[in-house]
């Protein structure tokens, strides 16, 4: 019997299809070839306008930005519709000077600097009073929406509106807090650590779980054990343990799922009215291998069919031998 599970944060239901559960191997899709280092734009030093550089990690303005902060931000109406020019900023974080494709193959020290860089850029962008949200995220592999250049990088977008999914999350978390006077994420963490059936890996500061109402096979959520609503401020002194758990998760994907495309997104609290999120929101990272295609039903309903129970995801990822071949 398949199950309907409700995500306690945004209230989104997922169908966990236990009967048609596909074995992990059924999702594996080979990655196409990548650009050679001599043609890689991110291996060249001067190809882009650099906005920051920290210990081998460079931040550049996107060569083809979809957001632009050179004009004043103005919202207008168009009859019943609303429009604004696409104000904001779009940056690329080049994670290593070397031509390495997958973040899983960077050292923990390098990954640590990447997360520190996100924090610094988020702190920078939120000083701009027009910015409502800053998202740091990564697309790896074609199926995740990336070009296959073969040079590990991630992106930072600062936008002048509160995006809908972020709004769903903060609203869900706030409703839970108003009802229980406890943080929903903290409650989730303590339940997951007690039951352990969806726990993938933990260290002293972080826990990685397969969410109870996962939308996608092998979806993973990384949460700090200590309550903090904001990534940039909450990361302090925990950069090393975040790098360690992220590297481990990405390695488990790479080895266990044959180097799949994936996305991760840092889900921090909105920039404005930060005091209203302090107690009820809890920053985290969503990591999603891109193994299935979203079909009409998912698009039409916002209701996902996950072909693997998250408990199986957790078991599978836990058992991957990340030291194989090294």
């Amino acid at each position, binding site marked *: 019997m398949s199950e309907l599970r409700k995500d306690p944060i945004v209230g989104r239901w997922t169908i966990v299809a236990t009967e*048609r559960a596909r074995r992990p191997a059924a999702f594996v899709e080979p990655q196409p070839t990548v650009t050679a280092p001599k043609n890689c734009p991110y291996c060249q030093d001067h190809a882009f306008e650099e906005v920051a550089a920290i210990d081998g990690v460079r931040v550049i303005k996107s060569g083809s930005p979809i957001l632009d902060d050179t004009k004043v931000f103005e919202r207008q109406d168009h009859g019943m519709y609303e429009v604004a*020019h696409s104000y904001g900023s779009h940056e690329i974080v080049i994670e290593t000077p070397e031509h390495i494709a997958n973040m899983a193959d960077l050292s923990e020290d390098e990954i640590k600097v990447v997360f520190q860089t996100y924090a610094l850029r988020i702190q920078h962008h939120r000083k701009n009073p027009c910015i409502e949200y800053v998202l740091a995220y990564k697309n790896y592999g074609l199926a995740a929406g990336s070009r296959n250049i073969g040079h590990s990088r991630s992106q930072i977008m600062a936008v002048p509106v509160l995006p809908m999914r972020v709004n769903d999350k903060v609203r869900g978390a706030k409703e839970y807090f108003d009802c229980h006077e406890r943080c929903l994420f903290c409650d989730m963490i303590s339940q997951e650590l007690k039951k352990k059936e969806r726990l993938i890996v933990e260290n002293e500061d972080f826990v990685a779980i397969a969410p109870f109402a996962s939308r996608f096979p092998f979806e993973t959520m990384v949460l700090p054990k200590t309550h903090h609503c904001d990534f940039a401020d909450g990361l302090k002194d925990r950069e090393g343990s975040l790098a360690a758990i992220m590297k481990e998760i990405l390695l488990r994907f790479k080895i266990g799922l044959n180097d799949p495309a994936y996305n991760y997104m840092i889900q921090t609290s909105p920039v404005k009215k930060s005091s209203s999120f302090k107690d009820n929101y809890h920053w985290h990272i969503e990591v999603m291998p891109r193994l299935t295609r979203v079909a009409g039903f998912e698009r039409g309903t916002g209701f996902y069919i996950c072909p693997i129970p998250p408990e199986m995801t957790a078991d599978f990822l836990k058992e991957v031998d990340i030291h194989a071949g090294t």
Partner: protein
Amino acid sequence: MPELRRDPVVGRWVIIDTEHTKGPSDFPKSDNTPTRQAICPFCPGREYQTPNEVGAVRPSHSLANTPGWLVRTVPNKFPVLSCGGFLQKEGYGVYDQMTGIGAHEVLIENPDHDKALVDLTKDEMQAVISQYQERFRQLSRDSRFKYIMIFKNFGSSAGATVEHTHSQIIALPMVPKTVLEELKGAEYYYQQHGRCVFCDMISQEYQDKERIVMENNSFLAFCPYAPRYAFETWIIPKGHSPDFAERDGAISAHLAQILQDVLIKVKKVLADPSYNYYLHTVPLGQANGAHYHWHIEIIPKLTRSVGFEWGTGLHIVPTFPQEAARFLRES
């Protein structure tokens, strides 16, 4: 200059990426060659390979589960939800779950294995729409169900796994999130303005004209002002109508015509892309639908969503809706 646009129903912002605006030929070629099944279970003569039919358009003298049908609906062999049993809701710590009660049916749109929806005759297309309505009415009698979703995946990158032309129907024990958001947004608009937000959209589309793809007596096809996807197109009844099930015969002929015509245009302009469409209507048992208005959303599958869209729900659309509408209109 790129634009941020806000959907007036659910309040979702989208980014229209004008810097890398894409016309129809700029999208990668689709991979629409699903493996042909040597023995297709949806072809006439193999009715025994599917579960027993639950509905069909067939001549009165022909027997169920034998050839002779024009449209045939069968339970999905691999249902994501199952029909037997009661709905049980359960709490589990901070989590909620319920048994996966529901119905999952496959609607085989035509006996001919080589025809796509766009190749059907007028009568065949009408039979598909009347079967949609028939199954919708049947399933809506089951009190365990709260919502019925009719949808189609065409082409492998839109999630189709069987080549033979078909749609699917899923009956759900709850109202899904995307629909709830629309309902909530529409209700809020109604409280503010005392009018249906969709009716207001239709009248503004007539004023602006540039996003209209086509129309007939009963329906308007247009590219929404704040789309989530390139070439996203909606078909909506011109007159206020909350509930799909209430349509009468004449109107279903108009729906068959406009849906097929839009799909033909999509095929021509975008070189036979994969696509999805789905029908949004008022949830079952919500008779008071003054603020809601049923419609079909057609989404050609041209781009992949990236992490940014997953993380924020802020979609990046590489084609202006008025451009998309112009290409579709002029084809």
